[in-house]
């Protein structure tokens, strides 16, 4: 196989990580809404944790992006 084609396929495969991140993000916001609708007065207290969890999970998606970039431009 040509190297360029292999690189493109590899970079595409690296984005499979987004499946897990999608599940994770949906879980975070779904759980937050679940809890917030049950007990709206407690929602503002966990909003900071929500954003922290969102940022930490989103970072995993970006690690996949970095791997894709390494495959495309560095290797």
């Amino acid at each position: 196989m040509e190297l360029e084609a292999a690189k493109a396929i590899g970079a595409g495969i690296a984005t499979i990580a987004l499946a897990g991140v999608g599940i994770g993000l949906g879980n975070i916001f779904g759980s937050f809404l679940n809890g917030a609708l049950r007990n709206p007065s407690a929602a503002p207290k966990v909003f900071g944790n929500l954003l922290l969890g969102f940022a930490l999970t989103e970072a995993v998606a970006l690690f996949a992006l970095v791997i894709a970039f390494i495959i495309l431009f560095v290797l």
Partner: protein
Amino acid sequence: MAHSPLEQFEINPIAPINIGGVDATFTNSSLMMVIVVALVTLFLTGGMRKSAMVPGRWQTMVELAYEFVAGMVKENVGNEGKPYFPFIFTLFMFILGANLLGMIPYSFTVTSHIIVTFALAAVVFLGVTFIGFIKHGLGFLKLFVPGGAPLWLLPLIVPIEVLSYLTRPISLSVRLFANMLAGHLMMKVFAGFIVSLGSIGIAGYFGAVLPFAFNIFMTGLEILVAFLQAYVFAILTCIYLNDAMHPSH
């Protein structure tokens, strides 16, 4: 495509400086860092110049930033964290300033380069490790032995804990760098869609409205991310510092 979306991250030398064979050229990245530090200093000292009992608008903003970070340190590290508050506040304001100034078109995002964020993360990692060893001596190693774990599991748990400790600077720096890189890249890619759609004629103009609207939305999201990443970096520094202060968890 005339312009690559990666073009915005190019580093251009402004004034070549060479100290004993070490390339210390003043680049657009260094210029941006100087501007960030100057603006943050101006913001803080200018706001507190009068330091009135009843704060004005500017002073309120400065106090808000101060109390935000002070509350974060107090909540996560406790009262022993007070001596380290200036460091965490500096870190937070620098990253926030760099992220926000990078949002201005034609400016340069300092934090979109891994070497910059890795330097920040390495300072945090080394500092926290030294603080832990100075405060607790070899007792700091208790951090790697979770309390209450059965003895036969320890050969498995300790290497995992050590490994997760050693990857902290990498995850801390890559998180900030990748967030800024991905956000700016995405905006440039959609800006490219607007240009190429606009060049195909009148039908393209109507099509170009969609990426344009998306780019406006992305700008808002990126400002949120700029703040969020500075917050995450600072709060993780607090959590690591707390680990160093109270290693036996």
